């Protein structure tokens, strides 16, 4: 069946900010969809609030709305654009839910917009637990038996009907409180009673527990002629009980016989047909009882998913791209397989390698949150590795994670469990945590049997046997003792099991380079194989490679100059999709300029690891060894111009100094070091006459105290060479400092971050209170010409990590002179570092600010007068997190420009070419707001601080700062209230600053509630306070938490001093987060919110596309 000609325009809904459970896999799927639909000639309208995505680059759609993803805003977009269809299946759960709401509210019917990809009925059947269960039972598929109970009597009845073990889940409970597994009636009695008590509606779901069963997923596609295919089977290393997003997963499934697999395949097709997904991809999860083979259906997602992104990368079959084509009417057999270009897409990929996906967590960012894995996903990113065997792919995957490990042990951290007895070790391994693979390896190394570990953990014996092979080989390698003792067969066996040279170097107490040299001398080198969807049955036209240790390479020669772009690895807090955006833009720009681009990355969620993005793709860990392998093979097959290390965040930048000299394109490794090395950097600033906050370095607590005494408190302490403000803290006195130093010295979490060594110095700087933080993104070329991409002003003051702070273009309160000073400093620094490419410089501006109490222009209450002082905080000669935001705000393709400059172009040339257009400077304000994962960690304090904890970002654009800020809050999920009561609790130092903001709220018709201290202060200044609340837990009166829970509060302003869960504030913030009430933890944010509330009034948001914003007045370049 041909494409549908009755459709002309299609609205694609994106997934919004990166959050836990919904990450850049939907940028990948959405980008594919937009490209495909555009190529098919449809007018593509895109809605997505996330500026860091590639899909929101204005090139990918005819109309790109970077607007909040709310039903109201989407309604406005649909009314404005009248699309013929909406495609909701490529933007995750967010898009699916929004489409359902648009359908339910009649918006789609009223506007004549058809839902394509999945019908409302199909979505409702798949998403509703009871309807799904009925549907599956109706077609003869088993689901775990379950029932709801509202009384204890009912609960016992349900339990007797289903039988033990049972899992009890209270309804409407955050964070899994009251959940438990009952193995008999005695334990059930307690758990059920507790659950009924915990549930606000006295309701519990009682379900047959299948914890410990084997878990599988099938990625299925269906077209409108009812052809169905399985794209990929996935088996979880961790048995049922751990969310699949938090599980190590393996493709293809390893321990299913054909009989079992075909049964599952039949069930999957029956499921997709019954649910009624007419076109596109679905993900169906199954569990199998390892003792009997009994199979149950767990759930199905009638849309592309995280797993389908993984399956696409794992097989080379682009599910989202095909799903988009199927949605507009094609059938699978009408679509050609991109990779073979000779066979149709109506087939099931055969793969001849093993893919392992490993999650990456960020528990170290959330003190007090146990790192125990369960049914709620907690990981923030993932890495995928390809090897010819599971052992090889597992070890490659572990080193892809960049947690300081290069595989399964053979590193200093392997002694972590030495203090435990065998029994303790097995007991710990029985609880799923990020450490489980290492605990299993340690147990096997001690001789604990596979059988025992299987019984304790439920991990399939086959996987454990593979771990044992690695562990056995480790013993063999240790007994050989040195690189000199290794014969060719030994090298080959070790490398085929995935051992990194770095592991061998540790084992033998040798240098990694020596190990590599000895191995190469023995004739054992990495060979590059190809992901081709067909296990080599047909010729592959797409150079999508991975390394392994086999006989021959499959990399072909090329005659164009090649640029290798190193990607950013797994998403983590501090390094996410923004860097993938930069790498992908670089690849596009350099391809257009005639280079052959070679991408190296290991993150399956990303656009960079789409085989369509670059001329060649190596799905490889971004470590020195793996990158060196790529450089070797690419150098052998053509002319490598160089390697780009400055667009993928810290991951590739760390490798700059290790690469062969002259190979690093752009800014030199020495300049990179100059900016990173504290002493060299300080000396440089002194020479340039650019003020820095007073500071110093220390290796001990005593030395740190001496530095702090010299610079004064409060002081900012942080380890060097870290990402995302890891372990960064503001200390207010000597005791505080000693505590912070002690925490940093303790290995544990710090050791996880990029192999940070404990002996790295700690940096101590005077913390600039009440300073405005400013970010600058710029590009400098080899002639010294500079492009200032943007000067961004942060909403929250210095002290809140820049990644967690809202930021604004153009700066709302900085005066022209200050901006000129900042630009001047930026030029001077870039010149001094001889930057050839992007640079980001952060400043703090103290004094003389123009921060207002809701009305712009008012002087800041209580601020020191005088001229503003500009301090430089740090400079990074690489692309920053804000590059995509700047591009979307100004219309300048900053990442493309940076990439071309890195590869040798001058800014003048790029202007002449038309790539570098003048920035759009007037007419609108852009606000970037951070999105934090507190709903996943309900016990974590929501207070913002110097350690970054946001997972994603959104952007609000509108005519005024207030409106743009209000949009950014709505996009982040914290819609600002139009009326109601605002609860205030201010730290002493914020009380004066808060006055004017509170007064403005009263003028806008809000009532004020406050804690007694704050209330007294507000009342003394004439601000009426309606409700005064008691301290949390105090006997008399309503306390703040109760007030918030009662639903009487529409917004919370709570600014504490210091951090930690010790005070009232933590309870207040947690309650606000749990009840999804906007909670502002700085006066600056409150001020911005009030501006938003005032500007918006009671009007709906107006929507406008990026293309329209970028088409308005363009100022000449400075």
């Amino acid at each position, binding site marked *: 069946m041909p494409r549908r000609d009755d459709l002309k325009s299609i609205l694609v809904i994106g997934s919004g900010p990166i959050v836990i459970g919904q990450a850049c896999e939907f940028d990948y799927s959405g980008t594919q969809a937009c490209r495909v639909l555009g190529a098919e000639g449809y007018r593509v309208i895109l809605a997505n609030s996330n500026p860091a995505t590639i899909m929101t680059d204005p090139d990918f759609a005819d109309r790109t709305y970077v607007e909040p993803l709310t039903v109201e805003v989407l309604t406005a977009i649909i009314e404005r654009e009248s699309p013929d269809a909406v495609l909701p299946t490529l933007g995750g759960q967010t898009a699916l839910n929004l489409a359902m709401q648009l359908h339910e509210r009649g918006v789609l019917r009223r506007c004549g917009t058809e839902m394509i990809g999945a019908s409302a009925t199909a979505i409702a059947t798949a998403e509703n637990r009871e309807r799904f269960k009925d549907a599956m039972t109706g077609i003869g598929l088993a689901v775990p038996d379950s029932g709801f109970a509202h009384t204890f009597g009912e609960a016992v009845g349900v339990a007797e009907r289903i039988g033990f073990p049972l899992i009890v889940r209270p309804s409407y409970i955050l964070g899994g409180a009251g959940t438990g597994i009952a193995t008999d009636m005695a334990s059930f009695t307690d758990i059920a009673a507790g659950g009924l008590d915990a549930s606000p509606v006295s309701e519990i779901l009682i379900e047959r527990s299948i914890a410990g069963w084997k878990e599988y997923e099938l990625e299925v596609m269906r077209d409108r002629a009812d052809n169905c295919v399985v794209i990929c089977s996935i088996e979880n290393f961790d048995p049922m009980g751990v969310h699949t997003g938090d599980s190590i997963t393996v493709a293809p499934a390893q321990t299913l016989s054909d009989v079992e*697999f*075909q049964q599952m395949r039949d069930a999957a097709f029956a499921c997709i047909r019954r649910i009624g997904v007419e076109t596109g991809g679905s993900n169906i999860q199954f569990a199998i009882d390892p003792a009997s083979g009994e199979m149950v259906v767990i759930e199905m997602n009638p849309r592309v998913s995280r797993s389908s992104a993984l399956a696409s990368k794992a097989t080379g079959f682009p599910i989202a791209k095909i799903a988009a084509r199927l949605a507009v009417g094609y059938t699978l057999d009408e679509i050609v397989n991109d990779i073979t270009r000779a066979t149709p897409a*109506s087939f099931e990929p055969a793969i001849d390698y093993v893919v392992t996906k490993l999650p990456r967590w960020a528990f170290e960012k959330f003190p007090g949150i146990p790192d125990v894995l369960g049914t709620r996903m907690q990981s923030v990113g993932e890495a995928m590795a390809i090897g010819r065997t599971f052992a090889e792919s597992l070890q490659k995957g572990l080193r892809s994670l960049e947690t300081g490990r290069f595989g399964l042990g053979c590193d200093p951290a392997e002694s972590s469990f030495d203090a435990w007895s065998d029994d303790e070790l097995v007991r710990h391994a029985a609880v799923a945590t990020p450490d489980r693979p290492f605990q299993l390896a340690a147990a096997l190394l001690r001789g604990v049997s596979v059988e025992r570990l299987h019984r304790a953990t439920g991990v399939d*014996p*086959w996987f454990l046997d593979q771990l044992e092979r690695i562990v056995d080989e480790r013993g063999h390698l240790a007994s050989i003792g040195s690189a000199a003792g290794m014969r060719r067969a030994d090298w080959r066996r070790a490398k085929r099991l995935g051992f990194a040279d770095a592991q061998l170097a540790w084992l033998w107490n040798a240098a990694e380079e020596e190990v590599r040299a000895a191995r190469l001398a023995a004739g054992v080198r990495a060979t590059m194989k190809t992901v081709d969807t067909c*296990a*080599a049955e047909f010729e592959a036209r797409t150079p999508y490679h991975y390394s392994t240790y086999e*006989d021959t390479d499959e990399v072909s020669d090329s005659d164009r100059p090649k640029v290798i772009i190193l990607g950013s690895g797994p998403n983590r807090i501090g390094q996410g999709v923004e860097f993938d955006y930069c790498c992908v833009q670089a690849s596009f720009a350099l391809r257009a300029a005639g280079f052959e681009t070679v991408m190296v990355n290991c993150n399956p969620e990303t656009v960079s690891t789409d085989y369509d993005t670059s001329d060649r793709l190596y799905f490889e860990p971004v470590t020195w060894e793996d990158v060196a392998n790529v450089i070797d093979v690419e150098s052998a097959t053509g002319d490598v111009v160089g390697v780009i290390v400055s667009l993928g965040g810290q991951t590739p930048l760390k490798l700059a100094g290790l690469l062969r000299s002259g190979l690093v394109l752009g800014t030199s490794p020495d300049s990179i070091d100059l900016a990173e090395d504290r002493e060299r950097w300080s000396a440089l600033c002194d020479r340039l006459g650019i003020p820095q906050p007073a500071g110093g370095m220390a290796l001990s607590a005593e030395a740190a105290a001496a530095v702090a005494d010299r610079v004064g408190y409060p002081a900012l302490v942080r380890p060097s060479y870290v990402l995302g403000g890891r372990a960064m803290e503001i200390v207010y006195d000597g005791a505080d400092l000693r505590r912070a130093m002690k925490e940093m010295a303790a290995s544990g979490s710090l050791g996880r971050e990029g192999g940070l060594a404990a002996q790295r110095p700690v940096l101590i700087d005077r913390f600039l209170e009440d300073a405005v933080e400013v970010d600058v993104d710029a590009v400098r070329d080899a002639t010294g010409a500079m492009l200032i991409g943007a000067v961004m002003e942060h909403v929250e003051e210095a002290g809140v990590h820049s990644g967690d702070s809202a930021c604004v273009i153009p700066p709302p309160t900085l005066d022209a002179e200050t901006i000129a000073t900042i630009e001047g400093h930026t030029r001077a620094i870039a010149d001094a570092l001889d930057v050839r490419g992007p640079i980001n410089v952060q400043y703090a501006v103290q004094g003389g600010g123009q921060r207002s109490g809701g009305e712009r222009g008012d002087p800041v209450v209580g601020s020191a007068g005088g001229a503003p002082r500009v301090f430089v905080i740090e400079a990074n000669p690489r692309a920053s997190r804000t590059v995509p935001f700047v591009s979307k705000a100004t219309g300048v393709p900053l990442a493309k420009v940076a990439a071309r400059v890195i590869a040798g172009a001058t800014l003048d040339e790029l202007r002449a070419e038309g790539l570098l257009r003048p920035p759009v400077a007037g007419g609108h304000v852009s606000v970037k707001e951070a999105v934090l994962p507190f709903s996943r960690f309900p016990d974590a304090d929501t207070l913002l601080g110097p350690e970054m904890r946001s997972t994603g970002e959104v952007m609000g654009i509108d005519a005024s700062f207030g409106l743009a800020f209000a949009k950014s809050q709505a996009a982040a999920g914290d819609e600002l209230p139009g009326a109601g009561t605002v609860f205030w609790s201010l730290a002493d130092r914020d009380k004066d600053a808060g006055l004017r903001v509170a007064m403005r709220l009263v003028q806008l018709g809000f009532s004020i509630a406050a804690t007694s201290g704050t209330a007294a202060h507000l009342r003394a200044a004439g601000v009426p306070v309606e409700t005064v609340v008691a301290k949390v837990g105090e006997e008399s009166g309503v306390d703040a938490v109760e007030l918030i829970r009662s639903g009487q509060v529409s917004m919370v302003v709570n600014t504490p001093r210091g951090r930690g869960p010790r005070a009232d504030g933590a309870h207040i913030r947690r309650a606000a987060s749990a009840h999804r009430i906007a909670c502002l933890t700085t006066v600056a944010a409150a001020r911005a919110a009030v501006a938003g509330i005032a500007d918006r009034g009671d009007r709906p948001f107006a929507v406008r596309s990026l293309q329209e914003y970028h088409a308005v007045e363009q100022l000449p370049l400075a």
Partner: protein
Amino acid sequence: MSGIARLPARPRVRAAGLLVLADGTTFEGETIGHRAPGGAPTTGEVVFNTVLTGYQEVITDPSYAGQVICFTCPHIGNYGVAPDDDESRRPFCRGVIVRELSERPSNWRAAESLDDFLDRHRVPGLAGVDTRRLTRHIRTAGAMPCAFGAVEGEGALDPADIAAAAREAPGTEGVDLVAEVTTSAPYRYEPANGAGPEGGAQGLSVVAYDFGIKRNILRHLSAMAAVEVVPASTPAAEVLARRPDGVFLSNGPGDPAAVAGAAGTVAALLGEVPVFGICLGHQLLGAALGGRTYKLKFGHHGGNHPVRRMADGAVEITSQNHNYALADGTVPGADVTHVNLNDGVVEGIACRDAPAFGVQYHPEAGPGPHDARYLFERFRSLMTGAR
């Protein structure tokens, strides 16, 4: 309890092995499965199979007689071997080449490890081979004879002898491999689970020619009819004398042109009784109708081949295992009903003036997808319609 308790790991000492193709290309590996003491190199025609699951069914499929199977899926043996999954009484393949053989199988149905199974059935093999390189070589150079064996340890072979054996090994063309695998005497197929055939109620009976028949075919046939299995050489008259409602022509190994007298036998059945052929049986049906068969470069061996059903355009994902095929346009009196979407190979024919049809692929699966099971239903309809 899962299979593990019964199947403790049994690591074997493996010897370095060598695989040499007829064109002299060599591959390193290590010996697995059976190792004949002081034996000669193992020879056979090397073909690759791309299934991700179902190695046991493949290894026990008699159609692999005379061949050495290279699995493209790197981990083989993961879930062990379960007697219920055997496709015949024993493996007929000459050898097995894998990248990685699992020593500790894991599945609740597993009765033994693949290594033990191969040893017990005297099937030698090599593990550790760059099977992707081997597959790519076969893809470009075509399926060809090979030889392999141990080159270290007791009874180690001289690599030159292995190479010579590879050069001298015969291919499959013109060789009647069916004689090696067919049943020696007729027998009535009894389903393993003891349940009587549903078809019994309708009183249908089928005579199945055993050119190397797979058990899964027998299971499907016996679900609709009483099944009598007869040797490949059984004359048509003898079959017709049993007054069956239908005659089934099974799959089998090698060159259809080399199966003595088969085409003539099939020709004699046409019009007398409904006929259904699978794989070799389909080729013989075509040959009986005057069609020509030819050898594909490396054949179709896998579980993921898309086939278009011409009647309604639907796509079936099919299980395939054949090196020979019917040449398109050479079968007068038959319509092409199914076509391979990868390469256009004829995958199914239906006789225009007799109740007879055949498919090149394997609707019985075992291993592979169940998409084409309806074909057995079609056979039943032909039989009931012809009554």
